[in-house]
């Protein structure tokens, strides 16, 4: 368990450091396109993915950096991708919204809200038919919980009895629209019963709560017990995407950053309990800081794709 905790902390810290750095770099104007940051939500990706291995696949959202890092995608390649470099995870063709690494079971961030859940029914089906013991995990936001694709996928996963997890990340808003308004039921987890699966709600600032709920669900799925819906509740630290105002929740975000922090909570708990001593965590912090620094400087120095790259990679065969 100590190893697991250490790695989970590393994942969360890496996500946080990655996102804060991207936030700063975006402000300089050097990063193109739409960038949605996951800072504040680290416990979800880390808590769920701590249970996953190579047999398992995940589908992510437009807010995908955290899920990528938690599923083991190379951080330097991610940063290079965000900068549109040839050394990026997608050779610069995808960008922040499309980082993927299928060799790691990471099926891609997704620019389409609700795009992932159907895909995960398929990866779970493949695992079931190939008898690998693998599971499929779809992360989606509170806004995505109102998309028909998401709701159809919940039903299909139950009907096919798939080894799947649906992780509803309720960060309170879809763009500027509050989830208390857009989700007609009290919670997203309330929908689980209508699709014949258990629904659980966890505190998304508490890594241990997420980790425990996900562990149960993964175990059930691997054992043939079917899908689970887990709703993780928390707040994002930054605006919907970089460069946008968040007047609609002025004080709220800063306040959350101060008082609701999965990293602080994690540190307190593991140092109090003696599971991990402070200096171990400090070392991780330092290592991560170095890694991110290197990722940014290497990304900036890397070449961009060129004319020869424009028309390749459309098809496997032409």
């Amino acid at each position, binding site marked *: 368990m100590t190893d697991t905790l250490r790695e989970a902390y590393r994942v969360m810290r890496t996500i946080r450091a990655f996102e804060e750095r991207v936030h700063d770099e975006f402000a300089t104007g050097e990063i193109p396109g739409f960038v949605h940051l996951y800072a504040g939500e680290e416990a979800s990706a880390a808590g769920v993915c701590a249970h996953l291995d190579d047999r398992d696949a995940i589908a992510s959202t437009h807010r995908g950096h955290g899920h990528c890092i938690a599923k083991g995608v190379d951080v330097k390649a991610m940063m290079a991708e965000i900068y549109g470099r040839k050394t990026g995870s*997608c050779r610069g063709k995808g960008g922040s919204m499309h980082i*993927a690494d299928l060799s790691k079971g990471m099926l891609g961030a997704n620019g389409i809200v609700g795009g992932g859940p159907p895909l995960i029914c398929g990866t779970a089906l493949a695992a079931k*038919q*190939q008898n690998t013991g693998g599971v499929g995990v779809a992360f989606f936001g509170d806004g995505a919980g109102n998309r028909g694709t998401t709701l159809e996928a919940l039903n299909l996963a139950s009907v096919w009895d798939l080894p799947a997890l649906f992780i509803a990340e309720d960060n309170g808003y879809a763009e500027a629209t509050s989830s208390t308004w857009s989700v007609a039921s009290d919670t997203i987890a309330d929908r689980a019963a209508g699709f014949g699966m258990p629904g659980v709600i966890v505190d998304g600032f508490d890594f241990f709560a997420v980790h425990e709920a996900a562990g149960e669900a993964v175990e059930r799925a691997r054992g043939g017990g079917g899908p689970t819906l887990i709703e993780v509740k928390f707040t994002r630290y930054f605006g919907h995407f970089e460069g946008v105002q968040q007047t609609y929740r002025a004080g709220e975000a800063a306040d959350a950053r101060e008082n609701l922090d999965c990293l602080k909570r994690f540190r307190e708990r593991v140092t109090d309990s003696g599971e991990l001593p402070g200096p171990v965590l400090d070392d991780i912090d330092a290592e991560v800081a170095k890694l991110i620094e290197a990722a940014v400087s290497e990304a900036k120095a890397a070449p961009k794709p060129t004319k020869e790259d424009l028309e390749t990679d459309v*098809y*496997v*065969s032409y």
Partner: protein
Amino acid sequence: MARTISYREAINEALTQEMERDESVIVMGEDNAGGAGDDAWGGVVGVTKGLFHKFPGRVLDTPISESAFVGAAIGAATRGQRPVAELVFIDFMGVCFDQIFNQAAKFRYMFGGNARTPVVIRTMYGAGLRAAAQHSQCLYPIFTHIPGLKVVVPSNPYEAKGLLIQAIRDDDPVIFCEHKALYDTSGDVPEDSYAIPFGEANVVRDGGDVTIVAIGRMVAVAEEAAKELAASEIEAEIIDPRTTSPLDTETILESVGNTGRLVVVDEASPRCNLATDISALVAKEGFGSLRAPIEMVTPPHTPVPFSDALEDLYIPDAQKVLNAAKAVVEYRR
């Protein structure tokens, strides 16, 4: 090779042979098994009938949740399966199009070449069965428009079998368009497995006076017209592209190079369809040899009408092809 089977049987045989050859090939769709565990239907037109018992666990029924199960087919394809999903009517594409064109079609490019999505979506198109506006469309031009998709339009049982086998073996997402009025047509089909490569047109008939490119069911209509044209001593060359994406531009241009005249017959709605696509190709690349305007024979810009009286007027027929061919042959600048 003198064995005659129907278009429906040819497709079933292709599925059977590929499922035997490769256990990663799976099949899914509404009532593809029928009632979740029986073999009542084999899909609404019976194409998958018999597969359920032959391949246990590999033929799946689905709820009426096209986004979910087409998406599932795509997801499974990224994890080593080769799913063949049945989207009963192509007209239903509008409820699952995102999974097809924003997900399957773009994975490979968006992910920098690091994805393979060998999924086949079989779907039924076309007019002629009085199925009205929401069950009679062609819509293959829409799929053809989207980079990353391959689009197949088999015109007879022989093509259907060979092209479906190729589609299943192909590593890219393929939209396989079956014309609903062809299922009960028959033709010679070898029993052995064979694959017809994509992007290679079939020259159905040789002729030096006019080139007729026809898609899917329109190939037979063009053949009918060609027979009558021959009676007027006009020899039409008929080209069946077989796949609209990729398109065999070479065979078309070569033929127009010889005939100097082109008619394109497309059952799809007339704006931004294959008829315009192929006409534009020739107006750009084959202009030097063109000796007459390019004629397009298509339905009018209307939804497909229900009444047989109107539907028969709607669908391009041999007479219209004949008229168009004569017009271009007789054209004098």
